[in-house]
């Protein structure tokens, strides 16, 4: 129990120094941009593939259920896929995928830098290491994760459409009538809130785990696993509270 508070304290101190004033803003922008590119471009393929199929599966499953209740019109599927993707599936699934990909990447990169004394080397030069190595990663993640989630929603809807056409559940006009029907901007707002919080949680926990590694290669492996597990759990808790408080 004491250890948890100790870690929490360490985490908060690190976050505080990660957002102190940069010595040269231009270098920080450059680094943020580089990180954003890394996270965004690197994760796009997996997010695109997974969300397309998830959209497809949702459409197929609802069509299967709706067929037994003949009163429900098939064009509703479009609206259900849209709502499901925006409110829950796109943010959550992206978050878990990114925890696996970006989280472990960040933790092992920082861990390696720690063990090979690269962080000490920055420190000796007079660089504010938490600010330079962590700040840009978190900023990039907070910017890029919402973008990825928006793309996931779009591709999920496309996936649902494709699956429906393949299965002959509805026509294109019917589906997109559903997609547009009863559209609520508040859902998008919630989605973005989630995405921003996920981006922060994921990157900050992974940075903490990587930055504070001690030991050698084995510890780097452990810490990157911990980064994935811990950030997944915390994101799902955050997810619950966002739904609970805002819906």
């Amino acid at each position, binding site marked *: 129990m004491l250890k948890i508070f100790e870690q929490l304290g360490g985490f908060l101190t690190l976050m505080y120094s990660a957002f102190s004033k940069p010595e040269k803003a231009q270098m920080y922008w450059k680094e943020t941009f580089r990180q954003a590119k890394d996270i965004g471009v690197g994760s796009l393929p997996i997010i695109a593939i997974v969300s397309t199929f998830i959209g497809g599966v949702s459409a197929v499953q609802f069509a299967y259920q709706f067929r037994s209740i003949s009163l429900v019109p098939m064009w509703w599927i479009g609206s259900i896929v849209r709502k499901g993707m925006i409110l829950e599936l796109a943010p959550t699934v992206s978050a878990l995928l990114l925890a696996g990909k970006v989280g472990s990447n960040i933790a092992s990169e920082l861990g390696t830098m720690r063990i090979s004394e690269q962080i000490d*080397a920055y420190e*000796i*030069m007079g660089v504010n290491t938490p600010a330079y190595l962590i700040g840009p990663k978190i900023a990039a993640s907070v910017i890029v994760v919402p973008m990825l989630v928006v793309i996931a929603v779009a591709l999920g809807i496309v996936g649902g459409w494709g699956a429906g056409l393949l299965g002959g559940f509805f026509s294109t006009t019917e589906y997109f009538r559903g997609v547009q029907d009863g559209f609520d901007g508040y859902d998008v707002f919630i989605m973005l809130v989630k995405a921003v919080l996920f981006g922060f949680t994921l990157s900050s926990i992974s940075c903490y785990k990587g930055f504070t590694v001690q030991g050698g290669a084995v510890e780097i492996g452990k810490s990157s696993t911990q980064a994935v597990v811990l950030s997944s759990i915390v994101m799902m808790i955050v997810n619950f509270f966002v739904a609970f408080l805002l819906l």
Partner: protein
Amino acid sequence: MIEIKNIKKNFGSQQVLKGISASFENGKCNLIIGKSGSGKTVTLKCMVGLFEPDEGTIMYDGRNITEMDFHARKDIRREIGMLFQGTALFDSLTVEENVQFPLDMFTNQTAAEKLERVNFCLGRVNLPNTNKKYPGELSGGMKKRVGIARAIVMNPKYLFCDEPNSGLDPKTAIVIDHLIKEITLEYNMTTVINTHDMNSVMGIGDKVVFLHEGLKYWEGTNKQIMEITDGELFDFIFASDFLKDLRRNAKY
């Protein structure tokens, strides 16, 4: 000149440094020698502020770094260059970007000025035409050279080298030693070097501090070392029985 007084450092219950005092002079290669695990790296890291000593003072030309806050320390760090035991090159950056990093971060020089300085430093360590390579593509000796170039790019007053020739063949090791020595003289730097290489001690040891079990056991010049005939330092220097016999039978 750097003076350390009564430096103590514990890790948990392990007393690594038990009160070390020494001074390191300008324009000289000051060597810290001692067995593996005797606390050389810890001493060096305390001196540059990567570890907080539990006790003691560290004076950089009269400025006490142990009493400084983060910002004052940052100013002193601009005057420090360090070559790490494992070189610690940034592996996502090229050789050129590695050496240029401090310039990017702390100066407002133009791209052309920076490149000129980088090329000068790389030339100084005899590494022309490697600018675009990544650290992973270099040999151990080349990495050390890049490490030295990066350490001197900001014209430091103080240069710290943690085992600059570990992992190098004897010839390359001597070349690196002499490079450090030349640079030290050229810029009148205060250079502190950790080593357990006897070639270095004899070749460049203007001043030698011998650590043993967390204490300074001996201090002197490389010439004086040759006059020693027993004790811990003798054991350390003439590690093998072969060398001990050779030394004892030598006539001076």
